[in-house]
């Protein structure tokens, strides 16, 4: 069996046979850590390159095309530049917090990788409170942002951090309520159960109206939560130079940069898992033949395909919508998205009770 799950299982077996169970767990931790970090690095390279190419495509440009084949090595070069750059720490800054902030943000992102099912039966930790875990951990990253803004001892950083904090805290509500919609439909908060419930159809199709509303809200909310345009007020160059990471440079800046892209990946992965069936292939009713063909495509490809589709969607937004003002941003959340989400939650509860979904 040459599947990702198979490889993972055989490694687990080998470790448990060779070492005592405690040490085996510890070694697995280390292994998973290394894997996640390298996956991060890879993701950073890919997503930054993708962003450049997508924006170039949107603006009818070519984009990076000199370094490597069709510019593929461009981000690698950028990374090397960032790594060798001098990491400045401002004079009045609180050194400990200043240096710790980017790591906190990154650690939060790493922790979020745990429950995501990358392929069939392949999950770092199939935790039984999956969705709740995601909500809980994602709230940590806002602290990193606030920490960065405060410790820089710079008023633009502080303002950026406050805006960012307010924005993330606000939009977390809508995102959480959108997630709750699917939880109600699936009847479980364990991610593997949610995926399993989509075996005969993805929730965005099965849950029709409320699921679609929830999906749209979720995409808007996570775009805001990841500080992406058009909600990138925290780092609005024209107003606040660069927001909370104004004072950061070199590797520490790169970590913020990286965690931003990783966060985009994670929220899109979660969106794909909840609404688009995770690694589940596209099945249509009783079209046995069609379903069979779809099953031949590896589950990891399904998952990555859906995730990157959502990432593309979010990148698309950036070049489509103009940036909002801070009051418009908060109005949008508190006066429109939140009431709609609450109403939608009520609607989905009703629909679930009446069994009006497929």
């Amino acid at each position: 069996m040459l599947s990702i799950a198979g490889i993972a299982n055989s490694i687990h077996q080998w470790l448990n046979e060779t070492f005592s169970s405690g040490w085996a767990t510890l070694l697995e931790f280390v292994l998973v850590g290394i894997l996640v970090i390298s996956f991060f690095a890879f993701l950073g390279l890919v997503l930054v390159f993708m962003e450049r190419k997508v924006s170039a495509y949107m603006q009818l440009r070519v984009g990076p095309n000199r370094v490597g084949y069709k510019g593929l090595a461009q981000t690698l070069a950028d990374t090397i530049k960032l790594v060798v750059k001098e990491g400045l720490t401002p004079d009045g800054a609180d050194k400990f917090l200043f240096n710790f902030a980017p790591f906190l943000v990154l650690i939060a992102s790493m922790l979020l990788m745990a429950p995501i099912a990358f392929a069939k039966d392949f999950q770092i930790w199939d935790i039984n409170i999956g969705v709740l875990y995601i909500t809980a951990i994602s709230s940590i990253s806002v602290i990193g942002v606030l920490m960065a803004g405060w410790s820089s001892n710079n008023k633009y950083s502080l303002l950026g951090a406050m805006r960012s904090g307010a924005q993330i805290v606000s939009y977390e509500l809508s995102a959480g309520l959108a997630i709750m919609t699917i939880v109600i439909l699936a009847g479980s908060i364990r991610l593997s159960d949610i995926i399993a419930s989509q075996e005969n159809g993805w929730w965005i199709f099965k849950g029709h109206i409320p699921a679609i509303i929830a999906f749209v809200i979720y995409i808007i909310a996570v775009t805001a939560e990841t500080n992406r345009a058009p909600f990138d007020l925290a780092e609005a160059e024209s107003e606040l130079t660069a927001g909370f990471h104004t004072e950061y440079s070199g590797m520490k800046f790169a970590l913020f940069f990286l965690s931003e892209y990783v966060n985009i990946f994670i929220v899109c992965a979660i969106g794909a898992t909840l609404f688009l069936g995770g690694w589940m292939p596209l099945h249509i009713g009783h079209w046995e033949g069609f379903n069979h063909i779809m099953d031949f495509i590896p589950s990891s490809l399904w998952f990555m395909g859906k995730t990157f589709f959502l990432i593309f969607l979010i990148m698309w937004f950036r070049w489509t919508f103009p940036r909002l003002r801070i009051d418009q941003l908060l109005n949008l959340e508190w006066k429109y998205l939140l009431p709609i989400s609450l109403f939608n939650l009520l609607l989905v509860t009703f629909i679930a009770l009446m069994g009006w979904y497929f």
Partner: protein
Amino acid sequence: MSISAMFFYALSAAVLVSAVLSVTSRNIFRSAIFLLFSLISIAGIYFWMNYEFIAAVQTIVYVGGIVVLIIFSIFLTQQAGVSLPAPMKGRMIYAALASIAGFVLVVMQLLAHPFKVDNSVVASRGIKDIGHGLLETGANGYVLPFELVSILLLAAMIGCIVIALKPNSTTA
């Protein structure tokens, strides 16, 4: 000592050390961050005890809510880079003495008391069981406190808005 137990002691140490740092640090933001560490470590202890739900709630409410609130209030009331005034010597000594005395007293009582540890059944504490327990109306149901807490939260929310509202400039 097994690795599992070592986790517990490591987490406990993290809880206590960050708590001590939190109450002694002269930099208020660091105080808040150490509080955060302490709270996250407590959440870790819950995780370690397989109380995942409580751990998640602890993280969501404390980390996502209360610490963020505290940090915001720090932002609004404090200057970055300015450390807090030193606590008063006399009271500091008194507080330390009282805390240590209380700690010793309680620990002495704790160790003297024979707790009857029950190793029998472990109830399943899945999210569904918790939900049913919370909304149960029977003998062991918690629906009334649940409703009460809901009303309390609503009242607190309204109260906060009223208290923190900027006084109307024409009337103030």
